[in-house]
């Protein structure tokens, strides 16, 4: 992941294939690698906006204490879903994902502004 784009920008998979993504953040800002449909990404962007407003994501840093803060309705802002990773510059993590059926799938960074600036990639099914 770079500021603000992925390399590669598209990948090809077979339906049913399981892929291990080794994601490395080579940029100066916090970035996300998130696999899902465009609708899922749009919903997630609202959540990420809240993370920025509450100081969890601050440019090139993550505030880990804030991530565990109780928002008052049982939710926290821990970013621990299996289909995504949120990385500080220099960090590296893996995402293992099975692409069961064909669909409109993208990988995207939902940090506010990044998707709109073009930080997404296409998953093409063979």
């Amino acid at each position, binding site marked *: 992941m770079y*500021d603000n*784009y992925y390399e590669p920008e598209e990948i090809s998979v077979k339906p049913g294939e399981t892929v291990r993504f080794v994601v490395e953040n080579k940029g100066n*800002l916090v970035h996300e690698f998130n696999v899902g449909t465009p609708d899922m990404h749009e919903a997630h962007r609202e959540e990420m906006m809240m993370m920025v407003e509450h100081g969890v994501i601050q440019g090139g840093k993550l505030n880990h204490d804030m991530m565990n803060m109780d928002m*008052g309705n049982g939710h926290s802002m821990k970013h621990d879903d299996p289909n995504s990773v949120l990385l500080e510059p220099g960090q590296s993590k893996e995402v293992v994902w099975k692409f069961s059926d064909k669909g409109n799938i993208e990988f995207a960074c939902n940090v*506010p*502004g990044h998707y709109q*600036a*073009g930080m997404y990639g296409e998953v093409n099914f063979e």
Partner: protein
Amino acid sequence: MKPRFLTGLLSLLMPAMVMAGEYDLTVDRVEIDTGDFVKEGIGYNGASPGPVMRFKEGENVKINVTNNLDEMTSIHWHGLILPFDQDGVPGISFPGIKPGETFTYEFPIQQAGTYWFHSHSGFQEPDGAYGAIVIEPEKREPFRYDREYVVQLTDKHPHSGDRIMRNLKMIPDYYNREQQTVGEFFSDASKNGLMNTIRDRMAWGDMRMMKADVEDLQGFTGLINGKGPEQNWTGLFEPGERIRLRFINSSAMTYFDIRITGLDMTVVQADGNNVQPVNVDEFRIGVAETYDVIVHPKDEQAYTIFAESMGRSGYARATLAPEEGMEAAVPQLRDPARLTMADMSGMPGMDHGNMAGMDHGDMDMNSSEGMSGMDHSNMEGMDHGSMAMGKGGQNDPFYAKGSGLVPTAANGGKFLSYADLKAQDPLYEDREPTREIELRLTGNMERYTWSINGVKYEDADPIRLKYGERVRFKFVNETMMTHPMHLHGMWSILDVGADQWNPIKHTVSVQPGTTVYMETEVDEPGQWAFHCHLSYHAAAGMFRKVIVEGGPESTQAKTDVIAKDGGEV
């Protein structure tokens, strides 16, 4: 414009081939048709605006400028880093270009992004002498798009620049038609109480000021790429494309609030430098500033680009559409903004203790709404109390607390603030400044004189800086107008409280009643202009010459500079 590329011969002589582009510009009398009126003005290569100059980062450019006017002219490349004798300011960079003469500018392109150029002689720029500069980067940009357009705004007035200056000197509110009305009196009375309203009018009357002094110059037709609202400049797109819009405000005096109904905008560049992407619904562009945004229209329909002047007296309008001839609804102008006492707070002699009976608790300050669902009082690290709240609860630390000028998005969404701008790639390491220079922005509206530290350009000493130092400029706005301060030749690192991520700009807007800081790494020798970019303010004296002493051979600034030159200049 005929680009001629010098290759071949040069490559035999040099070990590596140096990219070089040669361009020709003529400065001509032209006719400008705004749709509302036709007026003779000045343009480049037979038109106003002039051509879009397209350069490449890393190339050496050679620009031959032929003056076809019967008076001196000049071209200043706004925002470009170049040797001072190529900067185009008569009396500071060079003597100017004589009638009939061809002057050749030659300099390396050391940056990428969106910039602009304009005459720096007389009032030729408001008369039409401006154009755009687009510089292609060497490396990949931190954003993607499928097509791009320059969207260059100006405030074309039916009077020539010379005539406007003469009128302003005689009658300072000659062009300020938006006075408060009887109707406003009654509606304020019912909102704030009759006694409060009477006291308010009397207080303002005592000061001999109009609350409506948000804009000096009304009566203009807003143009986008040379076209008025009726002429409707249109940019075509295919639904699903990402479009980069290069907004440039080439006005003489007007700030515009820009929105595209139905489209969010993602701001990716400010003043030619990449910023961390910010999604907004609307933004305010100051005179001489640029903002690059990405939009992503998905539907097969037209969208209106609407640019309302800050004082709401006029507007500019353009369209993005899948086909020529398509139009979308054009919004109505919103109600004019009114200054409040908070905007006046910077002015000298404002003794609020004397204004008996003014209950600020009732006037102009709206309660903060919209913070539902969260108990913010418990959250550490957020000091909501210190942020300036305008109408509707918007915060903007770059406006006076209680200001009447804080912009709100027409659709209730996000309005860009300077506080949202963070550099994507800082140009300089963050370090402590070597000294601070205070510049009070001053003026006397009754005589239409504008100045810095109370002194007009012709009576002032130059500001002396030492090559290698880092100066922190403190702008204190003691007037009730907004001033876009532009330092030529070196970057202005605007202090938004983000340390190394402070955005890098060339023009910094200072709102009434506020103090704004910016820092400059003094790394370009020679002498440079430094002025308010409101054309009639600069001409009235809000201008300084900056002399940079020393050059690349000399050592870093010594601390005795502070003892000798510290304080007011």
